[in-house]
């Protein structure tokens, strides 16, 4: 099986964190450009609409700017950004819930794709995956996002979520089972992961 490069483990040029902490001109723009897409994806697969995911990503970057001094090392930058994202996404979901609660109009159930795809079937699959993830408990959705979509290892996810590795493993098992059930309940064909065909 080919070595998979985790989609979520975006790298930043060495020394960029120190440059940001020292307030060097242009450093934040470089950091933001390197991480904006990754944060937007997290928001999207943690249950936000594309518009809300865009706003949330922007908010995460602004919080990162304000608290950059608290990021200890480049090695933990992704973990640090993910933890900010969890909080910002939770706030966005809560705001949306209140908005829907007080609004006289029924909540908008339509979904739009947040990523650019080559084919209509890929768009459908992205929407299906987001819909199923949104129905999972947040703890399970986070584990699936980091392991299955971003490609982090269990040890890395344990560190990001501040959980024991055993807990991550059990959440992952539950999450996969729930996801499969939801996916099939949506009338989608059972999963045939491409990587299972690899030797």
């Amino acid at each position, binding site marked *: 099986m080919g070595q998979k490069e985790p*989609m979520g483990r975006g790298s930043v040029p060495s020394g960029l964190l120190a440059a940001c902490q020292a307030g060097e001109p242009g450093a934040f723009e470089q950091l933001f450009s390197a991480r904006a*897409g990754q944060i937007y994806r997290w928001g999207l697969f943690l249950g936000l609409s594309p518009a809300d995911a*865009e706003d949330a990503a*922007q908010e995460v970057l602004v919080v990162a700017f304000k608290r950059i001094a608290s990021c200890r090392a480049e090695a933990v930058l992704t973990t640090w950004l993910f933890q900010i994202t969890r909080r910002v996404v939770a706030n966005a979901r809560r705001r949306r*819930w209140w908005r829907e609660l*007080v609004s006289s109009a029924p909540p908008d159930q339509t979904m739009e794709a947040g*990523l650019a795809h080559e084919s209509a079937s890929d768009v459908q699959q992205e929407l299906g995956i987001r819909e199923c993830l949104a129905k999972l408990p947040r703890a399970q959705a986070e584990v699936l996002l980091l392991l299955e979509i971003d490609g982090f290892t269990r040890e890395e996810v344990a560190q990001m979520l501040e959980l024991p590795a055993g807990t991550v493993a059990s959440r992952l098992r539950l999450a*996969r089972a729930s996801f499969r059930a939801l996916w099939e309940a949506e009338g989608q064909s059972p999963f045939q992961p491409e990587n299972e065909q690899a030797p």
Partner: protein
Amino acid sequence: MSAPPDEKELGLRNIVGKGVVPAQVQRRIVLRAIERIEPRAHRPVRWVYATVGLVAAVALVVAGWFGRGPPRPSAGSLVATTSSAATYAIGPHRVELLPLSRMRFAHIDPGAVELELQSGRANFQVAHLLPAEHFKVQSEGVLVEVVGTRFAVEIEGPCQKVRVQEGQVRVTSRGPEGSAVLLPGQERTWCPKASGPEALTAEERLVREALALIRGDESDLPKAAALLERYRIEYADGVFEEEVLFYLCLTRDRLGQTEEAHRLKELFWAKFPGSGRGEKLRQQR
């Protein structure tokens, strides 16, 4: 030997990995974030705004001093009460918002007032209206139109209760009940089916139930506290964590459990340092 089904990867990455974040989205996020963090000191308009703001604030203080009375909300403003009630003046009318309630002043014109009670309870004292004028109060499930009167609207979980003290009001439900005119001394409760338990998740139901108990009788407070504690155990880091912790602080305070309330407030301030509710908890000390 093949792994059990739940040990196998779902292969989500093979599907999602084909999609890319649109370049214009990425650019917009970066540009807006940069715009928000850039120092604004070089912008001369900042001082203009500051001066205008200062003059406006002085004018408001002077106007408030000479024309003391209930605050006059502006159109579109959202107000919320914590432990004490607040009274607002809209022209000749008076609106009393009871503790733990929230209201939006959607539309305020000399002849047309439209309010949205979002949670809790409010009392209304409406002056005589001319035929062309109207005073409407909307809540999640009902619309109350005033014909010149004193009345109260209360939200209890998914239900809304309207009680008339003087005059008469016409209440229109969003549900199949249609509209009804209530006379002095009459009260009626509407419980729309559309917002029944099937429309809510277990997490939402738990929060709603606890909030309804908090707004009810004092004797329900221990049960409300127990529900909020249950939420914290079952939905650690849940979507309503901030609300739950906030109301738990208030409830423990009202139950006289000051040490526990203080411990919870410390936790709230640590977890939600930027929250406006944190300020409200500080003011309660």
